């Protein structure tokens, strides 16, 4: 009896221990999670902003001053110490985020989240994310100067990780029940791959292949023209290209088109990823100083994608937005110059159909069999045995789709050719740009940049402005890579690259400004093939019209432009649709909405109802127009907004206007009427469920935590206007993720803000403290410290000291 009691009580004890120490589904191990000495209560802390910290690997003392926004201003004696400090400070405030993003980049989420992430992981590995990072590390190793600094950054991150104990792990580790792993050069390379995927990881080649098969070449070309009837390119139209003496690759002798039926494709990055940047000349500036601005449009995440810092050595002082995991200031300025990026949106992914031999060890190429290489992806899964995925590699790149993944072709597959797989010393660009003093040094720094291709805007204290479209860009034959190509013919391979010096650029143009907003880089006169893969057509025109319409521009004008909510897309279609509706056919509810729509002035401000009406109406008319693209068993992409609107207005009786499912033959006017009724119905349904459909309520912008917008760690209903295709590009969960304006006084004076906060700890008051000011269009003055003496703007200073190895 006694022993039975002991056994029972022991079993109970073990049972309760197990229950409270184990993660069940999304519920964290509750004993571990809630206990006050190592659980989440330990994360109820503010940031430590003072005192001394001993750090292994530092050569000299480093001073870090924190200002009110807890932006750290680091003063190191040399670059190695500087980047070690950057690594240390970034980890201190953003460790979980930087670590997690590299898991996501590498296709390792199953290690943390279990089997539910397996398909995602397989996709990312088959996309060649790990392979691309390996290639990048190889190139970095060939550049010991870069490698040394990237290694110093890793040492800094690890110095922070080594100071941690389980109770001080960021809260997300406790929630998901795992530990931080050491940082490495490879993890920085993965982070850069993650950015490359985000910005140069989209393509529609397979969708276009399906469209070509279904509609034929003439109709395809009408729906997807290389240039629209209007273009206002990044590099002004009047640019003289006569200096270019390397021709475009000639067309191959015979083109075999692959007209496959492709059912599904891998996930694409958010099509809204893009940005604005611009700079104005001294002559155009109200103060006589050049002024530069940048606002990258990315997911509105918490922790924010950006972390703002000042990074200084005795030789340079750089300030601006960094990306946790990467070295240097990405969008910012130093004492002499300022820079910022927008996505160049060039087509750097192509697909090749591969024909294998019987055991899939070889593939056909120019009439011979070439060996395929094998890369085994070992995917670890939490609580399960690992999953091994064998990916075949051709000289093009990984065979992403084959009988084992999203395809049923026994002896064939589609291989991906992607600039992201080609390695590169991309990190060097930012390390050099941070120190650059003038236009020449800026262009030198850019040479190392392969991908993702960016529009790098530039302004200097001396008075130059410039914009280079930089990336390693294949010199394609006319039309190459629009569709899936036959991978067995060498003529279909990329034949070479556009020489770097012939990348499109503009320096001190006569019009007095440079600007980019992801639109066409150039017009038809540029001598290389540029495929319209998804260029933006609205923001750039609003921006350029704004600058062209004003004699002189001030910083206040820049602010107004950042926050400009003018909806050009709606302005180009909605009046036409309203005029072409037969109002006598409208019912009472429709009449009411019709009048609301009539009075809208096309500004997407939060108190307007017009933007919500437009959103619903546009969605409905767009879907009705392109019902031909709703095809079973074929993945499709319907035409771009610009071409859609152009056809609705100018080609209203085109066969595509017809609704396939009805016996009648519809024109665009019929579509306007039908879609308006649909829109009114869905708006009123929405109203019944959610209340007033003003733009604020209807859009309900939010900043979501990186774990699928975990509500407890996210911020909802942010009162901010704008939308996609608007200069203030804020849609539901996407938008200006960093806004910066730099006036090139000496030293420069700058403003900046982002929708988040410097701390990655959801328990910190600095986690989301910028969001309200960001939403109302305010900025923080960036305190550019000229020496390592604290000013009255500094609220805390920390000294990092070297520690010997003993």
């Amino acid at each position, binding site marked *: 009896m*006694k022993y039975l*009691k*002991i056994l029972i*009580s*022991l079993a*109970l*004890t073990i049972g*309760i*221990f197990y229950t*409270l*120490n184990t993660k069940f589904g999304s*519920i964290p191990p*509750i*004993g*571990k999670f*809630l*206990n*006050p*000495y*190592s*659980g*989440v*209560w*330990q*994360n*109820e*802390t*503010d940031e430590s902003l003072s005192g001394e910290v001993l750090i292994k690997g530092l050569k000299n003392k480093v001073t870090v001053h924190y200002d009110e926004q807890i932006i750290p201003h680091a003063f190191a004696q040399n670059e190695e110490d500087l980047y070690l400090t950057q690594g240390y400070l970034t980890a201190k405030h953003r460790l979980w985020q930087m670590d997690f993003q590299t898991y996501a980049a590498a296709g390792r989420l199953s290690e943390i989240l279990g089997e539910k992430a397996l398909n995602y992981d397989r996709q990312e590995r088959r996309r060649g994310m790990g392979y691309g990072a390996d290639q990048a590390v190889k190139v970095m190793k060939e550049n010991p100067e870069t490698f040394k600094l990237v290694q110093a950054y890793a040492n800094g991150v690890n110095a922070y990780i080594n100071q941690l104990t*389980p109770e001080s792990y960021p*809260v997300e580790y406790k*929630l998901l029940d795992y530990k931080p792993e050491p940082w490495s050069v490879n993890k920085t390379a993965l982070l850069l791959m993650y950015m490359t995927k985000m910005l140069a990881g989209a393509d529609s080649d397979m969708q276009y292949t399906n469209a070509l098969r279904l509609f034929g070449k003439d109709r395809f070309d009408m729906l997807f023209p290389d240039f629209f009837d209007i273009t206002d390119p990044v590099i002004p139209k009047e640019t003289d290209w006569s200096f270019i003496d390397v021709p475009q690759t000639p067309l191959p002798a015979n083109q075999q088109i692959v007209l496959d039926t492709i059912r599904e494709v891998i996930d694409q990055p958010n099509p809204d990823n893009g940005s604005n940047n611009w700079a104005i000349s001294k002559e155009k500036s109200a103060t006589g100083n050049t002024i530069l601005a940048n606002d990258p449009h990315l997911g509105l995440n918490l922790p924010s994608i950006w972390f703002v810092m000042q990074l200084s050595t005795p030789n340079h002082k750089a300030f601006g937005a960094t990306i946790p995991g990467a070295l240097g200031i990405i969008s910012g300025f130093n004492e002499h110059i300022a820079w910022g990026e927008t996505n160049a949106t060039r087509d750097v992914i192509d697909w090749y159909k591969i024909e294998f031999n019987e055991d899939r060890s070889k593939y056909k190429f120019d009439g011979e069999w070439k060996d395929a290489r094998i890369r085994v992806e070992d995917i670890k899964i939490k609580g399960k045995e690992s999953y091994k995925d064998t990916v075949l590699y051709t000289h093009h790149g990984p065979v992403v789709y084959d009988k084992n993944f999203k395809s049923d072709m026994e002896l064939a597959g589609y291989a991906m050719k992607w600039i992201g797989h080609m390695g590169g010393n991309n990190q060097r660009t930012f390390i050099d740009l941070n120190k650059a003093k003038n236009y020449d040094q800026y262009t030198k720094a850019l040479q190392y940049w392969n991908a993702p291709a960016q529009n790098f805007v530039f302004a200097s204290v001396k008075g130059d402005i410039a914009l280079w479209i930089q990336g390693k860009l294949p010199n394609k034959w006319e039309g190459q890579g629009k569709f899936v190509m036959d991978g067995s013919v060498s003529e279909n391979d990329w034949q070479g690259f556009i020489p770097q010096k012939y990348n499109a650029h503009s320096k001190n143009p006569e019009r007095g400004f440079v600007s980019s907003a992801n639109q066409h880089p150039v017009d038809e006169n540029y001598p290389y093939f540029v495929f319209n893969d998804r260029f933006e057509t609205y923001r750039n025109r609003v921006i350029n019209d704004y600058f062209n319409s004003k004699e002189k521009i001030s910083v206040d004008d820049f602010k107004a432009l950042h926050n400009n909510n003018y909806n050009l897309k709606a302005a180009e279609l909605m009046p036409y649709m309203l005029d072409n509706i037969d109002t006598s056919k409208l019912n009472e509810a429709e009449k009411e909405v019709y009048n609301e729509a009539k009075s809208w002035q096309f500004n997407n401000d939060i108190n307007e109802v017009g933007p919500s009406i437009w959103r619903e109406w546009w969605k409905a008319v767009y879907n009705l127009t392109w019902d031909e693209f709703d095809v079973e068993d074929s993945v499709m992409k319907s035409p771009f907004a610009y071409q859609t609107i152009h056809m609705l207005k100018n080609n209203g009786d085109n066969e595509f206007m017809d609704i396939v499912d009805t016996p009648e033959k519809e024109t665009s006017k019929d579509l306007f009427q039908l879609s308006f009724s649909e829109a009114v119905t869905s708006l009123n349904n929405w109203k019944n469920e959610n209340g007033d459909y003003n733009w604020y309520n209807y859009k309900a912008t939010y900043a979501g935590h990186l774990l699928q917008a*975990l*509500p*407890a*760690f996210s911020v909802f209903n942010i009162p901010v206007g704008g939308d996609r295709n608007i200069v203030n590009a804020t849609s539901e969960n996407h938008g200006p993720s960093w806004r910066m304006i730099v006036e090139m006084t000496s030293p420069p004076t700058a403003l900046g803000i982002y929708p988040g906060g410097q701390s990655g*700890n*959801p*328990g*910190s*008051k600095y*986690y989301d403290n910028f969001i309200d000011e960001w939403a109302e269009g305010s900025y923080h003055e960036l305190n550019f410290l000229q020496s390592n003496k604290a000013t009255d703007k500094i609220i805390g200073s920390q000294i990092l000291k070297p520690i010997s190895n003993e």
Partner: protein
Amino acid sequence: MNKNIINFIATIIIAYLLSLFMDWYSVMVASSLTALLIPLKRFAVFFVPFLAIFVFWLIYSFILGSNNDFILGKRIAELLDLQGNIYLLLTITGLVGGISSGIAAIFGKQLSTLNTKT
């Protein structure tokens, strides 16, 4: 002094000392130990260590949270479907510690019977 009070205080002190080098289950070790060394009777076997750790964890958590205006506590209380109610979260924290140490104490008490010849 009343054995209940001695056990109560000893459980907290030992739990605190063990927590310096042990994870959360130190409370279970502490209460089994005190149950073994300072055996109690009937319901007190469970309730004294339960109360000791319940109070200890609740107060400790309250101090940590209140130093930071419960910024994180409110979020965790939302995360765990407690409608952001931090008092509920504090109570659950106390209960988790309390129940696990109470049960471990029952085990300690049963072990203590090995020494007594009954």
